[in-house]
């Protein structure tokens, strides 16, 4: 058989086979059959050994040209097959994009944790560091060191759950009613400058209703240094309130009394529901109380061993539940600790 004829026959059968290959696997099979190491084209080239040099050159060239053509045809065919495959997917195997993916578990933080983190983040940005303290406290830290001695009428401001433990005829141990005792603990251990926040649970002997819980979460702030004044307190609280409730909030201050500060104040924001006109959220006042604050009483600084002529400071404290209720529009504080998943999963 003449080599030329062989080449023509090989080409014809190869192209026919290529047309028949309709998927990637068949194409690969074809490629191995014709162009592979043990394929028919290689076999044909091996057969050249018996030819003269002249013939070898001619046939060799023709065979190499054929190889190029087959490779090109293979490439074109492969491309067409792939295109057809994609077309098949596009046309016949659509995804219903409205169907859900398989579910992944979704966990959420409790809304009080979320609010607490926002509060801590805001104040951390102003240089306040977290300092935590015990939830079951001595009367000394919770009251006496804060200028609320035994039988002081201000004790009515913090109705107390007492621990059943007596010493020297008195009950010195209690569920802390506020996070303020940790102010004292920190001042006992550190020297100014001090800039701390105390987050944590507190407890009150208080009947529960839509706005009162016996367990509550507070954040207390304390800054002591040379040159701290009431205007700094106002600036710090105003910035905090705007970070938490929106930059366009108006912030107001009124005089209030806490035994451990002098002067004392309450910080309010203009009602974001009615913008100050008066509505149910703000009890028609146009203002919403968000926290209590004041300049640290000089006696407390002196008791901590600081010179009250040299150092001044401010303190503030807020209820996290109240902040969360305002931010999320929750109308009943009892939702938070009833832990109904239909409530918790909204946050």
């Amino acid at each position: 058989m003449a080599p030329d004829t062989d080449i023509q026959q090989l080409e014809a059968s190869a192209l026919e086979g290529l047309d028949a290959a309709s998927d990637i696997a068949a194409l690969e099979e074809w490629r191995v059959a014709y162009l592979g190491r043990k394929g028919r084209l290689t076999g044909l080239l091996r057969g050249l050994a018996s030819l003269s040099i002249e013939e070898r050159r001619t046939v060799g060239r023709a065979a190499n040209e054929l190889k190029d053509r087959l490779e090109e045809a293979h490439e074109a065919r492969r491309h067409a097959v792939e295109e057809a495959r994609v077309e098949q997917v596009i046309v016949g195997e659509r995804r219903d994009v409205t169907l859900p993916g398989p579910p992944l578990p979704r966990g959420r933080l409790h809304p009080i944790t979320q609010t607490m983190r926002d509060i801590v983040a805001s104040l951390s940005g102003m240089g306040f560091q977290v300092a935590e303290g015990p939830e079951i406290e001595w009367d000394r830290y919770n009251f006496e060191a804060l200028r609320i001695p035994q039988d002081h009428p201000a004790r009515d401001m913090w109705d107390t759950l007492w621990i059943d433990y007596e010493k020297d005829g008195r009950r010195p141990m209690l569920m802390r009613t506020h996070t303020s005792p940790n102010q004292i603990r920190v001042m006992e251990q550190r020297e100014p400058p001090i800039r701390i926040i105390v987050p944590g649970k507190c407890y009150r002997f208080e009947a529960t209703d839509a706005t009162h819980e016996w367990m509550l979460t507070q954040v207390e702030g304390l800054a002591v240094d040379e040159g701290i004044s009431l205007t700094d307190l106002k600036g710090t609280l105003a910035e905090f309130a705007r970070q938490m409730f929106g930059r366009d909030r108006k912030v107001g201050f009124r005089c209030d009394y806490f035994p451990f500060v002098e002067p004392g104040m309450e910080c309010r924001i203009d009602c974001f529901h009615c913008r100050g006109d008066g509505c149910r959220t703000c009890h028609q006042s146009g203002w919403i109380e968000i926290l209590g604050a004041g300049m640290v009483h000089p006696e407390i600084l002196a008791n901590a061993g600081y010179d009250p002529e040299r150092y001044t400071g401010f303190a503030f404290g807020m209820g996290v539940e109240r902040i969360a209720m305002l931010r999320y529009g929750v109308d009943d504080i009892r939702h938070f600790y009833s832990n109904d998943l239909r409530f918790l999963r909204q946050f």
Partner: protein
Amino acid sequence: MRVPLRWLSEYVDLVLEPEELARRLTTAGVEVGEIITAGDWQNIVVGEVVKLDKHPNADRLTLPTVDIGGGERRQVVCGAPNIAVGQKIAYAAVGARLLDGHSGDAMVLRKAKIRGVESQGMVCSEKELGLGEAHEGILVLSPEAPVGAPLSEVLGDTVFDFDLTPNRPDLFSIIGIAREVAALTGQKVRDPSIQYEEKGPAVKGRAKVTVADPDLCPRYVGALIEGLKIGPSPDWMQERLTAAGLRPINNIVDITNYVMLEMGQPLHAFDYDRLAEHHIIVRRAEAGEKMELIDGSKHTFTNEMLLITDADRSVAVAGVMGGFDSEVTEDTTAVLLEAANFNGPNIRRTSNALKVRTDASTRFEKGLSQHLPPVAAARAIKLMVDHAGGKAATGVLDKNPGKAKEGRVTVTMERIVRVLGIELSTKRIREILTALGFGARWMPPDRFVVRVPYWRTDVSIADDVIEEIARIEGYDQLPTSQLRGQIPELVPQPRRDLRERVRDALVDAGMQEIITYSLTDLESLRKVLPKEELAAAPPLRVSNPLSRQWEYARTTLRHALLDTLASNLRGDQSLISLFEMARVYLPREDDLPNEVEMAFGVVSGREPDRWGRPTGEPANFYAAKSRLDHVFAALRITADYREATASAYLPGRTAEVFVGGVRVGLIGEVHPRVVESFDIGREVAMFEVDLDALLPHVSEIVHFQPVSAYPAVEEDLAIVVAKDVAAGRALELIRASKLVASASVFDVYSGDPIAAGKKSLAFAISYQAEGKTLSDADVAKERRRIVERLQRELGAELRA
């Protein structure tokens, strides 16, 4: 404290609308909790008398025509002599509710003909409107009153209900509020009159006061008023008391109450003739002493309680309540009036111990001024002389007068700037202080010497005075600034950092955070803790729990998670996975409890299928473990699980969790009996981790390990072991090999063809060397060693 504005206006002109006044007071620290509008007049409006005709049939009656606004006029019949054209009057239409002018009973105005002429409504007197006793003539309104306006708008009384702070006992009085109003609105206070004539003989010798315990009674003023006629107090007084929330009783009691509300000084009137030897003795009670009080309650006293007694018996609990036997009665003709000052904390202690809180005790406990008793006594004597026919004895008995000095405080300008952050003019400072009743003497170059008025017992240091300046100036008037200066050195918070990382990891693992109460009841603890543990270390108990449900400081959270799970079951099998981060309170001898940071989790229900339906396997031990291991992975630590038993957990499906050789927690399926006791009705897996125990084993720092440049050889290995051999033990033995880069279990099987009592464990092992490519021979040699070790240690056979 309820303050009717009409009463208040007797001492200070009210130049602001009530709402604005309330706002200013509140901003200055005198919080108006509620504004109550009194005078519920319907169908009564302001009218103007435009014409006055004679009544055809009666000389003493007239027929005024009243313009009632809106172009309407009404002709009424009127008997008042003072009516005149041009007056603004209160016109009541038919249907209005009034008080009968004679009997004072409530009535509804009906259509009526009077002496043959129809009256289209009525022109009202004060008495008919319930405003006072006057019925001789009609009430003439201010000429400015707008015709047609509802009378309630023109005349209705407004009551401020104050939420006062305990540092200001002076504000528990109308005059105290008047002083604040005056300072805030630039008005002057009109003090009530305390002038009276002493018509009786000297009190000295006819009555006697002995203060045996002056530490508890720094001052005692006793005054004698005789010739009294007990009867109702004047109407205006009754109205004011009623408006302020007190019930009128008789003129003497009403006067003592009236002066208490007016001046803030509680008073007590003893029946002079019923006081043995006319002798008042103020002394501590003898332990066990008893008395019946005015309200009929009977009490036994301790020797820390202060009593008022006469020569024979006790007549009052000092500062709290009078005794039954010495009460003023209808037959009383003379009283010994007490105006005293008592030790605040002592009164508070007594009142709390007896559970008797009165208007008197709530004032005394806040610490009243020692200068107040003689002033208030004089005021009450004057009222008794004027309104109860009393004759005041000459002089009063005053024990321990003049002991308390007026306060003086030096306030430097430097301190004002230091505290407030700004400078205020000396003029403005003096203005504010003077308006509040302080004396302010400027001592050049830089300070004020401030005289504190006697009623301001709360002001004793410079910063107190500075607050006065700031609150009247208004905090909102002060500028704002930001903190400057050095930011304190960072104090690490590893405990908090760990807690927050664990919290995030649990959320990451698909768990929902809950927060439950820190207090619980014994019954809940008993369900989940062993009896012996509860008996050996009983939890801390609250001595005054709000409810038995919240009586004990919890030492575990198991019950809380199970309770919350139970309350969230909705009758399907949906997967619920909850966690809580909280402290438990472990009691310590004579010290605060150890508050341990814990993380608790529960998982229950079936895993969701591709469509999210709970059709998968019920969550079991492994569901809990994958979540807990997720946390450990986030912390980059490895935990060992060792089978164990624990209360509330199911034996055989429970493990202790160890990290770095230390037990840090528990994990397991909850015992079916416990599940049952919480009404859960399906399997529950739970875990608990002691974060304080875990803390030393957690490092923030990651140490980089070079990635091996040589390829790993992956192989599977299957062995057969006795059923009770833990896969973890086999893994440990496999991982002990130096060439094993990693190994994990991928199949556990028992049943045919594995012999009974045995199981097959399959492991995927990755071999890798640090410095070379492993040959087949290297791997085979290592594998043989591993198999030998497994045979030796576990009796394992290679699975064919």
